[in-house]
């Protein structure tokens, strides 16, 4: 019960804090709208009108990854800059239980992206919002956000040791969009990329969301994304413990 309360309070606090930050308003709303507009005109120019809902949906999903990336990657650095990383690490609960709700909040912020690109597509471009499996659509979004939050835990933990975390965040936005097939189908990518995409939970989450919205079976994607999220959680906890210990030994926790 105490753990559930800790997770809920941290998640809610982080969500409120990020909602008020200009950077996250941009990455979760403005940037996805720019990409949604770009994808709309691109697919329209390529005479693929059937893919317009796909474009709006994909731009929103791209936004979920961007929010997760900058929120999770920056979570530890923000704490460093604010001078609260050391007290948080020294506090009684395991640090993984403090970091996880923060990365989950970063992924949750991505809901703004999805909502804004779908509303934008409907209002500005008149794209009909007809989802083939609405219940599965909602479930697949929740599962994708949780799996991204757990992936964010692994990523954020790795950044404990790497002070230029922002640089990695800047770099990782486009490659994950490519590898997870969020907007470009994996079949167009070189074969050697496929195994890499299979071990990424967002690949399966995105596939489930696309299938639930546009037609297809979303359940295998939901199941695999959940399974991978569980594996990530175990890895994330181990990584947090190992890296936290190393950072304590090297006295680099509070270095900015």
């Amino acid at each position, binding site marked *: 019960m105490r753990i559930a309360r800790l997770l809920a309070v941290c998640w809610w606090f982080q969500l409120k804090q990020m909602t008020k930050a200009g*950077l996250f308003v941009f*990455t979760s709303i403005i940037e996805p709208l720019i990409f949604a*507009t770009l*994808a709309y005109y691109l697919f329209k*120019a390529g005479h693929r009108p059937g893919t317009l809902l796909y474009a709006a949906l994909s731009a929103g999903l791209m936004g979920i990854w961007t929010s997760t990336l900058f929120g999770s990657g920056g979570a530890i650095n923000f704490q460093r800059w604010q001078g609260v990383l050391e007290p948080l690490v020294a506090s009684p609960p395991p640090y993984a239980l403090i970091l996880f709700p923060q990365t989950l909040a970063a992924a949750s912020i991505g809901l703004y992206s999805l909502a804004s690109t779908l509303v934008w597509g409907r209002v500005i471009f008149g794209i009909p919002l007809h989802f083939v499996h609405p219940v599965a659509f909602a479930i697949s979004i929740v599962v994708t956000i949780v799996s991204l939050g757990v992936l964010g835990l692994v990523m954020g933990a790795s950044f404990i040791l790497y002070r230029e975390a922002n*640089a990695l965040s*800047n770099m990782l936005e486009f*490659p994950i969009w*490519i590898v997870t097939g969020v907007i470009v189908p994996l079949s167009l990518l070189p074969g050697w990329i496929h195994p890499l995409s299979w071990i990424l939970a967002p690949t399966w989450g995105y596939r489930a969301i696309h299938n639930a919205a546009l037609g297809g079976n979303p359940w295998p994607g939901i199941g695999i994304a959940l399974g991978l999220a569980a594996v990530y959680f175990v890895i994330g906890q181990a990584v947090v413990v190992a890296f936290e210990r190393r950072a304590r030994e090297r006295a680099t926790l509070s270095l900015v």
Partner: protein
Amino acid sequence: MSVAVRNRMSYGRDQRLRQTLRIFFHGGYFSYRALFNWQSPRFYVPTMLAGPAFQVLFFAYLGRYSHVRDDAFYVVGNAVQVSGMSGVFGVAITVGGERWTQTLAPLLATPANRMALFLGRALPHIVNGFIVSAFGFAIGRLLLDFHPGLGTIPELAVVVLLSTTTCTAFGLVVGALGLRWRDVFTIANPAYFLMLLFCGVNIPLSALPKWMQVVGSGMPLTHGIAAARRVAHGASLSSVDGLIGKEALIGLCYFAAAYVLLRVFEAEGRRRATLELV
């Protein structure tokens, strides 16, 4: 006028010129050095080389999926646009970042020539933007279906250098706005990404609504990218002189706008005592 007076005036002019050039080159160099993170390969390589390279790849594959244009279209468009990583973000941080480092007030308290002061800060970013852009082209050449003739490279370099310069002028405008609005990234982020949409980077301008074409034609890079695409296909520089002329003119307009904005916001910052607010 006596010879002695004329010599004194000439000496004074020479000294002012030397000072201006020193502020332009040394000031620009040191302001770039002061971007301490950027000196580290651990920051520079992921942000300035890998990130833009992945942008080129992403849009090339998106282009293949959308069937709009070939790889060359996306490689040229994005390789030129990624110069904005330095031209927009770098300049915005350099100028707007003076506020965070609390050096803005002392800087503006000096009698230094403002034109030299701020244009000098743009110079290293033009060079850096050119390097970022060249790396984007190299990635396109190595990993995608983009094979311009060797003979086109010098002319392509001229167009890219011009485009990088106009993009940097645009970055100066963004940096100037950073003197007024305290968080420069709130302006720099949309400015960079809107270029992807409006400047014909990934969508042919003809496929956009009329009002977006009008906005795009007044943005930096739009004409430079169009010229670069033709040059990459083998056209000579003289055959794209109209596009080059427009790009240069737009760049000059942005430099002028940046200068005016910087002076206006400097005066306003002094009047409202907001130069040191972070």
